């Protein structure tokens, strides 16, 4: 079903094309979708680096600007902390058009092809020389392990499932993925706990680990959890990440896909700059 917004976009584009080309002073390209207001509305968390923040310091902010620039739009943000019901409160509620990083194929949205694939990683102080790679490493039965947790629902990050299945429970320390929202970048608390030695090792989503390890006053070592699918439980640790739009916005998704394809070089530089550990093909 084509939404009124998409139709409006096409009509506007036909009328506005010359002005738009001037405005962005770029090579004219065929664009199929553009919002009537020339605005790309981005759903983002205002306090969650390395993903996004209100100051525009996250990689999602950078990629959003890049996409909008290419489309000839300006960026407007719908700020909402990434909690349960985030999609329902933002994109589905039509407060914004795109979520810059969601798992490719994420069921609640229409997604582009992935632009990076990262993995859960082990993070430890470099001076400990653990070089952990496998969840079957016997040292994990005694090391103090920090993990993020989600809440009382059945949800859990993959390392929690895989370690729990191995009976590795009593030496696990839980950190809320939400943390204290009055602190900057609440999920970073887990990485700080590694640096401080509160926990020996954390098993954490790669982009968080890579970004905060780069900024840590204590040198930290990062190693991916391998294999990327747990042979024992079937738990997957690596996720391809894509841009998501509302399910009725196939036109917008296709436009964003073309930008991702055209500007892949610039996007990969941003991913690299933020220290995101990238694994395998996507």
């Amino acid at each position, binding site marked *: 079903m084509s939404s009124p917004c998409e139709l409006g976009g096409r009509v506007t584009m036909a009328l506005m094309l010359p002005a738009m080309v001037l405005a962005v002073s770029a090579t004219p390209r065929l664009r199929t979708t553009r919002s009537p207001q020339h605005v790309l509305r981005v759903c983002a*968390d205002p306090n*969650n680096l*390395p*993903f*996004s923040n209100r100051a525009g310091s996250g990689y999602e902010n950078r990629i959003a600007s890049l996409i909008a620039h290419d489309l000839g739009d300006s960026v407007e943000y719908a700020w*909402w*902390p*990434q*909690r*349960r*019901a*985030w999609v329902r*409160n933002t994109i589905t509620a039509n407060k914004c058009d795109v979520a810059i*990083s*969601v*798992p490719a*194929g*994420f*069921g609640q949205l229409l997604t582009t092809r992935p632009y990076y694939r990262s993995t859960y990683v082990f993070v430890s102080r470099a001076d400990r020389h653990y070089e952990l790679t496998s969840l079957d490493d016997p040292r994990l039965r005694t090391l103090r392990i920090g993990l*993020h*947790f*989600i*809440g*009382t*629902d*059945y*949800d*859990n*990050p*993959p390392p*929690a*499932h895989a*370690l*729990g*299945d191995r009976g590795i*429970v*009593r*030496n*696990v*320390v*839980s950190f*809320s*993925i*939400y943390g*204290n*929202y*009055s*602190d900057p970048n*609440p*999920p970073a608390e887990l990485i700080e706990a590694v640096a401080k030695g509160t926990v020996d090792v954390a098993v954490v*989503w790669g*982009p*968080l680990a890579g970004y905060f390890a780069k900024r840590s006053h204590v040198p930290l070592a990062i190693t991916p959890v391998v294999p990327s699918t747990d042979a024992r*439980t*079937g*738990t*997957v640790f690596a*996720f391809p*990440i894509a841009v998501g739009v509302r399910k009725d916005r196939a036109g917008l998704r296709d436009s964003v896909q073309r930008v991702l394809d055209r500007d892949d070089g610039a996007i990969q530089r941003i991913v690299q700059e933020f220290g995101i550990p990238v694994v395998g093909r996507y």
Partner: protein
Amino acid sequence: MRRSIVGGFVVASALGACMGTHDAGLSASKVERAAGGVANEPRATIAAGTVTSPSGEWHMQGNNSALTRYSDLTEINTSTAKNLKLAWMFSTGALRGHEGAPLVVNNTMYLVGPYPNIAYAIDLTKPATVKWMYRSNTDPWSVGVACCDVVIRGWTYDSGKLFYNLLDDRTVALDANTGKLVWETKLADVNEGITMTMAPFVAKGKVYVGNSGGEMGARGWLTALDENSGKIVWRAYSTGADSDVKIGPRFHPFYPKDRGKDLGLTSWPPDGWKHGAGTVWGWISYDPALNLIYYGTSNPGPWNQDQRPGDNKWTSTIFARDAESGDAVWAYQVTPHDLWDYDGVNENILVDLPIQGRTRKALVHFDRNAFAYTMDRETGEVLVAQPFANLNWSTGVDLKTGVPAVVPSKRTHQGATVQNICPPDIGGKDQQPAAFSPRTGLFYVPTNNECMDYTGVEVSYIAGTPYWGAAMQRHAGPGGNRGAFIAWDATTGKAVWSVPDKFIVYSGALATAGDVVFYGTVDGWFKALDARTGQELWKFHCGSGVIGAPMSYKGPDGKQYVAILTGVGGAAGVDSHVDGYPAEGGMLYVFSL
């Protein structure tokens, strides 16, 4: 205005016969015994010593400290109810779910809605005239930070003040005459994922409040505030060391499974209790003679069961505490090591009940796990535990040990798919409060009849982080009706009658001395039934769905009124995909003859 039926309304008699192997439901037309029909037959009565609102008024959510939601007014009765007519209406101006009941004190109605928690005092001596209005400055940011739930379950009145909780973790006291703020107390930081949604309860000069936020990994507590100053007097956590839980020399649980030192620590992995949930978002009752308060705690968190071996005390637990000191007197963990999201927060209704030849001081609790527990409220002994709604997770509760026998095939496990778990996460009944009539000796219970298929393989993401979530597909239980309104005999542990409904029945219940019971449906019907037979006497179609709790009062004109706050939302949203689910919109409806 009455309007035509929206969606496919389910006729009661077509669906009532089958509620699964446990036979909890019967059709409305089938009455097992004439409840209360024999004059000399002993029956349950409201707990002796119960503190009740003055006749014709309604001062607290349950109308009395026993939480019976029983009105002694009789003008609206089984003969006259058919003549009920709309008297007046009032818009709350709010969307989202409207839970709780309005209060009536001294010819003034007091009404509070969901976020942004605007409160109204309405002068009943003039046609729907607003006497005052109070706009709490609830932080709008808290709606996002706190995630999903913006309901509140009403408020309470005592000694010239009204008390309620704001989503951003403040308890406020208002002057009932002027609507001016008397005190407000900050109890927690919403930035840590804690919110407050329950209705405070007042006894012994203390305001008891509890927290919500298990979805965010909060640690549960009940806190007592000084009624006059708002100062925190004590706080009892649901997890952690005995000193945190206020377990001391007076603590004598009935069952060995609930005895031992520091079980709130030792029944968890080393740090698990810190984020163990056991939040206190339901109802509080009070026995002045025993000087005990009663309440339940939520399910455990945050890990799946693999990550929290042990009973996970004191989650999914009923506590009896000294009203003054907060010291725990007994506790009964209803669902040890919960695997299904069976919170234990549902109300504990206090009655004195003839059973096995003697009268016991009892507490009746309809748990999310779909067992109805009749317990001795002095000791915590379970006297009766029978299914009041369809369930298949357990084969029964052993009354000698207090332990429910779990059906192995219904255990959830990450990565595994478990088909047809009954009840689902929202339970055989959620927080929607039941009523009790001393005239019939029966409990009137809004119930859910759904089951879930659990699959632990769905990719989701939060805070930028992808993870494996579990998908819960809920479907109607046996019979095809998603809910039922039942009459329950707590002595025998049997349903006396049952009226099925298309949706979960998520409103509260009201019982009256006119032998009429009232409740509402998610698709907007407000109904009056004969308390003894379940026969429908009257119904009215509201503009939105009913998840509030009905109450009754006597107006300045001497007439009996019945009021219901409507506006769909809350957990009724689990049925929002079902044909006939109405639009949002908060409206109070008031009816009289």
